[in-house]
């Protein structure tokens, strides 16, 4: 990607993000109530999107040489660590360190 293309990509992301923030204030000026479908979508979509993002992160691993084995090991570790300590930052750090150790030493 050229620098210009990078800048355009980032601007597209900025535009999409800014739109999600300003849209409610633009279409529902003081006093108007939003339609039910929109409020419901705002409530349920966050849960679904995180699922989508997990799959997005693993999209290339599934089709790789190890079929996602190091990813699965690290995710199980994150799961157990999180169940045990319930510390978001610790779980993220622990999982990342384990994954880096796995792909640097065993799954080359």
């Amino acid at each position, binding site marked *: *990607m050229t620098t210009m*293309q*990078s800048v355009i*990509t*980032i*601007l*597209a*992301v*900025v*535009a*999409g*993000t800014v*739109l*999600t*923030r*300003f849209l*409610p*204030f633009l279409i529902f000026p*003081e006093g108007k109530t*939003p339609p039910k*479908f*929109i*409020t*419901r*979508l*705002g*409530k349920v*979509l*966050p*849960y*679904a*999107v*995180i*699922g*989508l*993002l*997990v*799959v*997005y992160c*693993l*999209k*290339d691993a*599934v*089709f790789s040489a190890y079929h996602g084995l190091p990813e699965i090991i*690290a*995710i199980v570790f*994150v799961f157990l660590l*999180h169940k045990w300590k319930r510390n*978001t*930052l610790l*779980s*993220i*750090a622990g*999982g*990342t360190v384990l*994954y*880096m*150790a796995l*792909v*640097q030493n065993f799954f080359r």
Partner: protein
Amino acid sequence: MKRKAFQAALPHTIPIAVGFLFLGMSYGFLMRSKGFSFLYPMLMSFFIFAGSMEFVTVNLLLSAFHPGYAFLLALMVNARHLFYGISMLDKYKNVGWKKFYLIYGMCDESFTVNCSVTPPPDVDRGWFMFFVTLLNQAYWVGGATLGALLGYVVQFDTKGIEFVMTALFVVMFLNQWEESKDHRSALIGLGCSLLCLLIFGSGRFILPAMALIILCFTFSSRKEDRRAAK
């Protein structure tokens, strides 16, 4: 007036500072390890200011050029802001020019504080919410910049560091799972995405997955409406 509001806002943002500095630094460090100048994470964390989407954008910048797709993905990933916005329609009223920044800088954490904390009666509400938002953004942009700068100094084998994004989303998924009793939305998201990944392959599954998720919700909300009508 400003000073008082700042002093009232600061303690509410300290726990957020710890998380934002850590995650922001991982994000900045990740970008640097992929060869980007520190200006990228610094400007992206300032202008996008939506953590999940910034991590995803690293991938977008490393793959083929599709700005329309980047735009749609940003809409979808940040759709929760619509909900935050709708909840804040009243709270952000009558705060003058600060309203623009409050909306622009609204992230999960600022929303949580501004939504749940009522400032003491002698503190100006508008300035209080302004400083909560400003401090949170400062932690995030500061963390991202610092992490990238650290990437110039600290040298080690960073292979596999991109897993920080996977770990982040897995933990968010677990946290959401425990917060809510109704797991249908989480399962719809996971199921539709997996299905589309297997059918369309890794390069093209996101758009069909987003469409399928919205379709599922349209059907289930119609069903609920019918049930409510009875």
